[in-house]
């Protein structure tokens, strides 16, 4: 398309012309987004303002469903579990990823290719399958973990990992870490490989050993990568569902209940559509807040 202006175009005309043209290009994607993302979100937000009975709207309840949140103990327990999950993810997979990537970065290209593929493997396994694998590993009767503990003489430490309230959430988190650390290794590895190698050489000549190079060069220069992974992990920690649903479905009791399982149960098992919608809106608000925060922090750094 060629623009023909009889005289010098005014900036406003130009802007409108460009905007119209731009709009045409994004229109197909925009239509799909509105139909499959924006409308359902608005629908859920609207549902949360009504009380429901057996799948049909009973009455307009305003913010009544949101008021119920304050007295819903399960909601607060689930939110707490999400927070614990986020903190543990920040502590372990990120740190393990960073250390492994730092060690791996100094190996030969062949080792790097092989090991990063191995580390990343768990990430490629669907979470449902990962849940089943770890369900077997944690099985109190024929599980691998108890078997290995027995083998090395620590059988007394064994137990029903996913069925005991003290260990269920932590055991699930270990499984979650297993699916996530390879991703951290890969992201950190590519970030480390983009650091000028002469910085490490200069540090070696300045008297730094491996640990000091890690502490004074690698860690500070990977700040923005850590920030990205941290915020990504935090958002994931709010959204995860599959692993819990396949293994414990939030049990025993509410010991591994998280927001998504609570919403699922409220919607599909209880049929309380209005309250499930209110819970969904709150979850969306939390995720959007973390997302907005991360966008801001990352664009600043």
């Amino acid at each position, binding site marked *: 398309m060629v623009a023909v202006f009889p005289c010098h175009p005014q900036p406003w005309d130009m802007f409108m012309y460009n905007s119209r043209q731009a709009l045409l290009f994004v229109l197909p994607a925009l239509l799909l987004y509105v139909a499959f993302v924006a409308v359902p979100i608005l629908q859920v937000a609207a549902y949360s303002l009504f009380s429901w009975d057996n799948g049909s709207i009973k009455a307009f309840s305003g913010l009544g469903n949101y008021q119920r949140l304050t007295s819903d103990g399960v909601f607060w327990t689930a939110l707490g579990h999400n927070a614990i999950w986020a903190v543990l993810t920040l502590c372990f997979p990120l740190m393990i990823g960073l250390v492994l990537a730092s060690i791996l970065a100094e190996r030969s290209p062949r080792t790097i290719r092989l090991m990063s593929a191995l580390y990343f493997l768990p990430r490629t396994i669907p979470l449902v399958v990962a849940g089943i694998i770890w369900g077997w590993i944690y099985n109190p009767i024929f599980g691998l973990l108890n078997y290995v503990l027995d083998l090395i003489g620590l059988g007394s430490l064994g137990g029903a990992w996913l069925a005991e309230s003290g260990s269920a959430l932590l055991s699930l988190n270990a499984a979650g870490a297993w699916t996530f650390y390879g991703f951290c290794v890969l992201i950190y590895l590519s970030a480390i490989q983009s650091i*000028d190698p*002469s*910085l490490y*050489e*200069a*540090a*070696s*000549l*300045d*008297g*730094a*050993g491996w640990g*000091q190079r890690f502490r*004074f*060069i690698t860690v*500070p*220069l990977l*700040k923005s990568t850590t920030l990205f992974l941290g915020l990504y992990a935090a958002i994931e920690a709010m959204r995860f569902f599959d692993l819990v649903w396949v293994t414990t479905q939030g049990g025993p009791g509410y010991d591994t209940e998280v927001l998504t399982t609570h919403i699922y149960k409220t919607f599909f098992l209880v049929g309380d559509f209005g309250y499930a919608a209110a819970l969904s809106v709150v979850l969306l608000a939390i995720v959007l807040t973390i997302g907005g925060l991360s966008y801001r922090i990352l664009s600043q750094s």
Partner: protein
Amino acid sequence: MATVSFEGTRKAFGAHEVLKGVSLDVADGEFVILVGPSGCGKSTLLRMLAGLEQATGGDIRIDGKSVIGIAPKERDIAMVFQTYALYPHMTVAENMGFSLRLAKAPKAEADQRISAAATLLNLDTLLDRYPKQLSGGQRQRVAMGRAIVRDPKVFLFDEPLSNLDAKLRVQMRAEIKALHQRLRTTSIYVTHDQVEAMTMADRIVVMNGGIIEQVGTPLDLYDSPANLFVAGFIGSPSMNFFDGKLERQDAIVMFRANGGFALPITVEAAGSAREGQAVVYGVRPEHIDFTGSDSSGDFAPVVSVVEPMGSETLILADHPGGKMTVSYRGRGVFNPGDRLPLTIDASRIHLFDRASGRNLRYSGQH
């Protein structure tokens, strides 16, 4: 301050041998420049001295003590990198003081040393800035400051000026030389720029293909190149070469170029060369005079391009055997197509054996 010596030092990457047994002694306080084309092994030699690459043969000694197998941090060496390698998350002061921090030097002493180096390099006002806030020349100074603060036995420079623009390079060249004159720390400097080597070095080491071609003072190399490679590498513009052989003409031995023309030689330049021997005749553009009439015979270069430099005029000319460059001191009026009235200063010419490339004046070959 220290002496450095390489004894038959070798380095191979797999089957590819980069350094083929290099031996060199650097005296205490000397400023030695390793120069050569890309891939000649000069940077590898420097990195091996720093401990960043391991030698695959021979020995490397600092102050007479072998450093093979010793970690970089134990060698008491400071290096200025081509990319400066400043820590981007540290201020200038932190960059300069990093080695002292690692060595757990007392803060007062560290501050004093950083401040002294900063004063020496005019960095006093920049100590709180980050590298990204500095210009190329300032970064270069910080990199040197980081080296100076450590007060090492040896300074290594790996093409430190190649990222700077031409004007700044000339300025920094003088600053580095002045700094060395002041500190007198043994320094080894790598560059591919022969002008840098000529202007800064106490001694130049010309390398090519993993071996040392010649070691000498800048003027030694300029006046007495040991072979064709050094003759062509040192000097700007490069020496002119003509292929031909030695010929007797009326009881006088002359050089007869493959292009057909004859040029005068001296007994000293010919050394012990035989009549009929295939040789390369070398003469620098600045050792050709315009007053005479060598071209009255069959040597008649014709101007093809004129490059006025202000103080001199470079003339690219064609002759029957190829192309040559002539330097005219001043601003002559030359036009493409002009025939040049040249006289070659026969006392300044060099004759090289065609086969070995060796300078016949020094080879003692029969």
